[in-house]
């Protein structure tokens, strides 16, 4: 349909922006309620300790203080659930409580709370609480934590192992490695990151004793899931007793998916005290109490033939999960990591072994990309290591091993039954190379080297997995998630022809209010201005699993699309009735129903919606109103791909790496709003490049976070980057009728190996084969001075 194609795929300005650019949007911190109290949380200064006693008497007497509580006061509240445990293996689960009672396993664990009339009073009183700790030895390194003699964090997890998981086949992989012409081994660190959305976390809970019902506002990417976990698992009450609202959310990047102790604590406090209670995280708290991401120690062995054909990949990873498990922590370094290690290549033998390990550090869970950046880093570094070993061009080795377009749907075997949906990997690479001008670059590089300047180019031809939902695959019997992750939508065409869409997805910067409206407008042939998209309130929206893993378009918006088809079917029946035509003779096009070949005599969707709502002349048996709810459980995930190229120059004197060019070709399937997709790509690239060059959480041996503020943790600034050169290829997915794959994480997933490969290329004259992230100037400088990496 002409109109549909025009709106779907166009650069419509975002409809959520007017409230954001004027300061009218209401974030959690902006919400005030009558009688609102403020909570401040006392957190453990020790990474590993027994709590011997807590004296709250002085704090309780401080002016303005309403109550002071410790963990013992909430012994009847269950610990947080771990909703995604690694599939088909034993998980030794330990999760946080609203406040810890006997023992803390990381710096920042909550041990007491003050509730006061204002935040200043609460904060002042916090300093009057005395906790007697017995400090225990700590371990922060995941590999060391598994060795004999390491401090033990939990009784049920010998050697601090939360889980041991494998995928692929060990014996065939070992055999293939033995038979390979070359085998390259490499140890690589994927360092711990701190997500750092610009808005920290917060929560307000209000309890109504008369009905025993809560309303909870929280900074959540998944309000329906929060309600389910809090009611059914933590408090043991019916789900219907709680309404969860995510107000305007200031970014999440995964860190706002999870059920945190503070949310349950606010709910427990408001029930105890009978007044609404608010907690807003400070940035310093955010760094120690909100989840971190990545933190892998990995050893790889990759085997290849002399011509560059990769024959085997063996990976052993220690994944640091922190002191206790966050909501979906076990699923990230297993399903979302190990199963994506084949990348864009045909690799006949893969084996991946993962230890998920407890250490005395903050919780680690999904952070933008979640498992796929770690997998992409492994395979894209592996390809370069093979190329380097064999003296081949890294582009040629990629081409040699690419899964060809005719091989789709492609089964990489390690995906446990899923198949890559569609892909044209060489096409994306070719476009990227054309933008780069590869041959010229190599000449320029050779010239520069003669002058003592070190340029490098790095490639990353990635594939990732989005729309993680199919119940048959992700659910308990398969990948271990406690449920199928279908999505829902309701579409209502009101009497006036205005459309209200409610979705179980959640938007915290992604622009759903615009992109979903574009799909509705396109399908119904109406103006985008006539569509309202509502989300983030469990009261008014159908159940949904929320927004993460680039799933809102590939799963949530497809549910909207499915509802629109059913609405169009009903509109056709009613339109035919109004035109006194046979249903089989009419068509729905550009927002009108008419008899095929007679568009002059038509009924508009607005007229039909009005007739459906007024309901006094409906065909026999037809219910009033144009209204439909859909639940969409996709048959497969979607697999976006592309090639990113980074060009760097390394300063020989200072060791500083400067990004000269960054080219990103992404194929995210069909695009609903190119402007929004480009924005997602830009933001993702910055987070990935930042991991490669600057960011990294650092704990000392005692478990103190040394990078605990924005002064110490290197969030990149505007002048760290050149203008990115982006373009797309478009390979629709056959998985869903919109052909969309997902675009929220490609930049973060693709970029780290592109940058590191470029740096290694630049430093090749110095004999460098590998360098760990973040590639900071001192690290490079030492190499340039001949002192190793």
């Amino acid at each position, binding site marked *: 349909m002409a109109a549909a194609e025009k709106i779907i795929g166009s650069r419509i*300005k*975002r409809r*959520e*922006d*007017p*409230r*954001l*650019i*004027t*300061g*009218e*949007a*209401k*974030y959690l*911190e*902006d919400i005030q309620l009558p009688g609102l109290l403020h909570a401040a949380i006392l957190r453990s200064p020790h990474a590993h300790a027994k709590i011997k006693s807590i004296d709250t008497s002085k704090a309780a007497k401080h002016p303005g203080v309403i109550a002071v509580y410790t963990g013992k006061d909430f012994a009847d509240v269950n610990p947080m659930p771990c909703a995604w445990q690694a599939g088909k293996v034993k998980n030794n689960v330990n999760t946080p409580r609203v406040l810890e009672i006997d023992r803390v396993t990381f710096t920042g664990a909550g041990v007491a709370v003050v509730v006061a009339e204002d935040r*200043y009073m609460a904060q002042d009183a916090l300093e009057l609480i005395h906790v007697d700790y017995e400090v225990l030895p700590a371990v922060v390194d995941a590999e060391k934590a598994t060795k004999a003699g390491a401090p033990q964090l939990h009784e049920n997890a010998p050697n601090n192992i939360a889980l041991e998981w494998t995928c692929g086949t060990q014996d065939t992989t070992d055999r293939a490695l033995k038979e390979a012409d070359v085998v390259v081994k490499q140890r690589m660190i994927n360092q711990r990151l701190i997500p*750092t*959305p*610009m*808005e*920290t976390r917060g929560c307000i809970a209000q309890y109504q004793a008369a009905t025993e019902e809560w309303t909870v506002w929280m900074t959540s990417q998944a309000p329906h899931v929060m309600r389910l976990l809090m009611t059914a698992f933590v408090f043991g009450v019916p789900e219907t007793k709680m309404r969860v609202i995510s107000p*305007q*959310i*200031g*970014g999440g*990047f995964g860190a706002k998916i999870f059920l945190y102790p503070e949310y349950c604590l606010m709910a427990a406090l408001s029930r105890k005290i009978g007044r609404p209670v608010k907690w807003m995280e*400070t*940035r*310093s708290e955010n760094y120690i109490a909100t989840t971190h991401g990545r933190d892998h120690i990995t050893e790889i062995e990759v085997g290849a033939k002399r011509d560059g054909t990769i024959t085997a990949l063996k990976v052993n990873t220690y994944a640091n999960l922190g002191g206790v498990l966050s909501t979906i922590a076990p699923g990230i370094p297993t399903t979302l990591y190990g199963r994506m290690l084949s990348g864009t290549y045909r690799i006949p033998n893969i084996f991946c072994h993962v230890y998920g390990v407890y250490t005395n550090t903050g919780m680690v869970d999904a952070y933008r990309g979640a498992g796929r950046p770690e997998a992409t880093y492994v395979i894209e570094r592996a390809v370069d290591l093979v190329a380097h070993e064999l003296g081949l061009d890294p582009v040629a080795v990629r081409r040699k091993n690419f899964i060809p377009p005719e091989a789709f749907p492609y089964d990489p075997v390690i995906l446990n039954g899923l198949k890559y949906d569609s892909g044209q990997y060489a096409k994306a690479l070719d476009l990227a190379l054309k933008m780069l001008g590869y041959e010229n670059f190599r000449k320029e590089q050779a010239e520069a080297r003669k002058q003592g300047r070190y340029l490098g180019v790095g490639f990353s031809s990635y594939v990732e997995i989005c729309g993680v939902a199919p119940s048959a695959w992700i659910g308990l019997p398969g990948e271990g998630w406690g449920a199928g992750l279908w999505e829902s939508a309701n579409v209502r065409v009101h009497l006036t022809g205005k459309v209200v869409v409610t979705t179980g997805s959640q938007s*915290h*910067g*992604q*622009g759903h209010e615009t992109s979903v409206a574009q799909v509705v407008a396109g399908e119904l042939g109406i103006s985008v201005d006539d569509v309202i998209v509502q989300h983030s309130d469990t009261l008014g929206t159908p159940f949904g699993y929320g927004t993460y893993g680039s799933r809102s378009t590939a799963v949530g918006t497809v549910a909207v699309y499915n509802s629109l088809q059913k609405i169009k079917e009903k509109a056709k029946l009613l339109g035919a009735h109004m035109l006194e035509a046979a249903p089989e003779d009419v068509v729905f096009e550009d927002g009108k129903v008419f008899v095929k070949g007679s568009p002059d005599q038509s009924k508009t969707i607005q007229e039909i919606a009005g007739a459906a709502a007024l309901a006094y002349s409906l065909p026999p048996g037809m219910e009033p109103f144009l209204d439909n709810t859909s639940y969409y459980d996709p048959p497969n995930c979607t697999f976006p791909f592309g090639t990113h190229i980074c060009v760097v120059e390394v300063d020989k004197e200072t060791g500083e790496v400067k990004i000269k060019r960054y080219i990103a070709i992404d194929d995210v399937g069909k695009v609903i709003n190119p*402007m*929004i997709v*480009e*924005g*997602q*790509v*830009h*933001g*993702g*690239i*910055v*987070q990935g490049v930042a991991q490669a060059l600057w960011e990294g959480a650092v704990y000392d041996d005692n478990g103190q976070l040394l990078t605990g*503020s*924005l*002064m110490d943790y290197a*969030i990149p*600034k*505007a*002048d760290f*980057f050149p*203008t*990115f050169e982006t373009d797309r290829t478009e390979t629709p997915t056959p998985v869903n009728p919109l052909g969309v794959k997902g675009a929220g994480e490609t*930049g973060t997933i693709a970029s780290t190996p592109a940058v590191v490969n470029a740096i290694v290329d630049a430093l090749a004259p110095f004999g460098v084969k590998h360098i760990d992230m973040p590639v900071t100037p001192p690290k490079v400088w030492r190499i340039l001075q001949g002192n190793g990496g």
Partner: protein
Amino acid sequence: MKVSIKVNGTLYEREVEPRMLLVHFLREELGLTGTNVGCDTSQCGACNVHLNGQLVKSCTCLAVQADGGEVTTIEGLKSNGHLHPMQEAFWEKHGLQCGFCTPGMIMTSVALLQSNPHPTDEEIRHGLEGNLCRCTGYQNIVAAVKAAAGTK
């Protein structure tokens, strides 16, 4: 202490604690919640406002320091019901995603153009170094500032 501060053209007189930050004065005393707090170490710039024509981080300024002064916040940028050209440019160029850094980013960008009406890309990126954005990768923010400046 008693302070009198003109905010977005209106004079407000209030009793405040000496330790009250300007950002809390704006948000909690006046209900102007457009100005956000993103950190506690003066790094992020989400709270940037104009005080007597100068860009300040309102989390690093006490309300009493603004006594007798004039403050402009994001809520005061519109004139006669029309968006400021910088607000229009951020909208047009997709210079925001979650929107949390946006009020501070816009206030900084307005100040930037006041001191340098036709900046280069490099000057814009340098001028924004006191503001952190975690969503956009800055590229479309730079484009927005350029568009507002009318420079190509």
